[in-house]
């Protein structure tokens, strides 16, 4: 059965109530690694949003017009990753060629997100939840913006606490995980509004 939720609802839900990072805990590695400084975090977030939206659309087409007719849906994990990797490489090449400014902001992060599990996660959820094309793109875009929101918030907090007296053993990833946990708790407040998963 197809999902009955409208695309705008899926879009907002994937930002707030079902934030891919804070509700599903996907994409944690780059979330923790690149959140030391706000500009890099925003750059990475934008890159993730862009790639997530485009690859969801691409993978929707590949899934429904190639894998389903040929009865090869069990290959979806591999196929999705291959498509994501190829797309990322192509985009990096194009950006580097035509827009050095954009390359500085976005391009260097692209190879990092080839293996970002949040992106694969969104593609797989799209299949599990039986979204149509519009819903999938809305989910991809919303998921990306949700990820951007979460990493921007974490980077902002980490910049603020840089001079705080943190116990030695908690410095770095330790305190970041605690913060991420608290952020997830606060995002749970949204969950009463709507559920998409």
């Amino acid at each position, binding site marked *: 059965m197809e999902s009955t939720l409208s695309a705008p609802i899926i879009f907002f839900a994937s930002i707030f109530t079902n934030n891919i990072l804070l509700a599903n805990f996907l994409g944690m590695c780059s979330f923790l690694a690149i959140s030391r400084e706000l500009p890099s975090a925003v750059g990475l977030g934008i890159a993730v949003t862009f790639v997530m939206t485009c690859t969801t659309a691409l993978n929707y087409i590949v899934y429904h017009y190639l894998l389903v007719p040929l009865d*090869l849906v069990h290959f979806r994990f591999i196929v999705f990753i291959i*498509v994501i990797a*190829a797309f990322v490489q192509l985009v990096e*090449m*194009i950006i580097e060629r035509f827009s050095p400014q954009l390359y*500085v902001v976005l391009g*260097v992060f692209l190879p990092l997100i080839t293996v970002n599990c949040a992106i694969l996660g969104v593609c797989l959820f799209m299949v599990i939840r039986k979204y149509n094309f519009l819903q999938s793109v809305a989910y991809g875009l919303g998921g990306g913006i949700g990820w951007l929101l979460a990493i921007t918030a974490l980077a902002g907090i980490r910049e603020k606490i840089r001079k705080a007296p943190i116990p030695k053993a908690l410095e770095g990833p330790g305190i970041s995980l605690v913060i991420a946990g608290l952020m997830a708790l606060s995002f749970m407040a949204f969950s009463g509004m709507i559920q998409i998963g």
Partner: protein
Amino acid sequence: MTQILVGLLSMSGLCAFLALLLEIAHAYFADYGECRIDINQGTKTLTVKGGGKLLGTLMDQGIFIPSACGGRGSCGLCKVKVLEGGGLILPTETPYMNAEELASGIRLSCQVRVRNDLKIQIPESFFLIKAFNTRVIGLKPLTHNIREVHLKLIDPPEIVFKPGQFIQFEVPEYEGCPEPVYRAYSIASAASLKTELKLTITYVERGLATTYIHKILQEGNEVRINGPYGEFYLRHSDRDMILIATGSGLAPLLSILYQMAEEGIDRKATLYFGVRSRRDLFYEEEIHRIAASLPRFTFVPVLSEPLPEDHWEGETGMVTDPIQRDLQDGSQTEAYLCGNPFMIDAAVKLLKAKGVTDDRIFFDKFS
């Protein structure tokens, strides 16, 4: 059966399609045509194929920028000054730069892509860095675990280096070492002897390079090296010198002593050479021979664990012990240290406490 075949074919088809797409895109988008690289304001101009990273492009042209990570952007060593055409500085470079470097246009050459004509500036000494084909003309044990490797340069036939610098030794593939690895070794011979090099190499249990050098390398073998590298060399001044070495860390200091003897640099100098016991001492005769032409040079071997049969009457303990006792005021002293990192950390701490200033302590850590 059909399903397996269909699966296989469509997967291969999809991969082939994507690969083809990327190949076409690469040929079209990553082709930057011919670019000119101007080095040191016209000292050298190269015409190269654009599209590659600056580090690799220069290396293809025979100009070696020191780099320890092989261009992955993780060591931050391959810095060059890009005057024109380098584009914007990338976030992958900024962590390795201080404010002054950022302002003066220093870039990591492994991150800068050659996409148009470039003007760059590199230290003159980088022109001296080359890859050399050499032949092993002598292998001799200096101690039970240190081997002297004597190399004769074939192509190019001469090397110009500052005594104290090191070279990178290419260890080829062999059983137990699946791909070539590079290791840095200091040059132990005199810089005036341009056609030959001597390296002193300590055997490390299961070390990829040292196992090769100690167990496999034979006289007559060809060896590839590149260099010279490093900021560890004799500074010109009249200050008193303290030289401290442990084990094969003696090599660069010996090269510096050759230079002092040959150039008649008459400075008060003391070499403290720390090893475990008598059987670990080497090059003693060589040092005494050099000492004969350096009137104000003193050699102090220090044994940390002399054996009973050594009948040792010289200094014992840590190599830093006699310095602790002898050096009163270090404010006019220059220090050159080479050897294991623990000794260096301890010695730097001691020297600073004795008043030797930071900018006069030079060291080369063997790790």
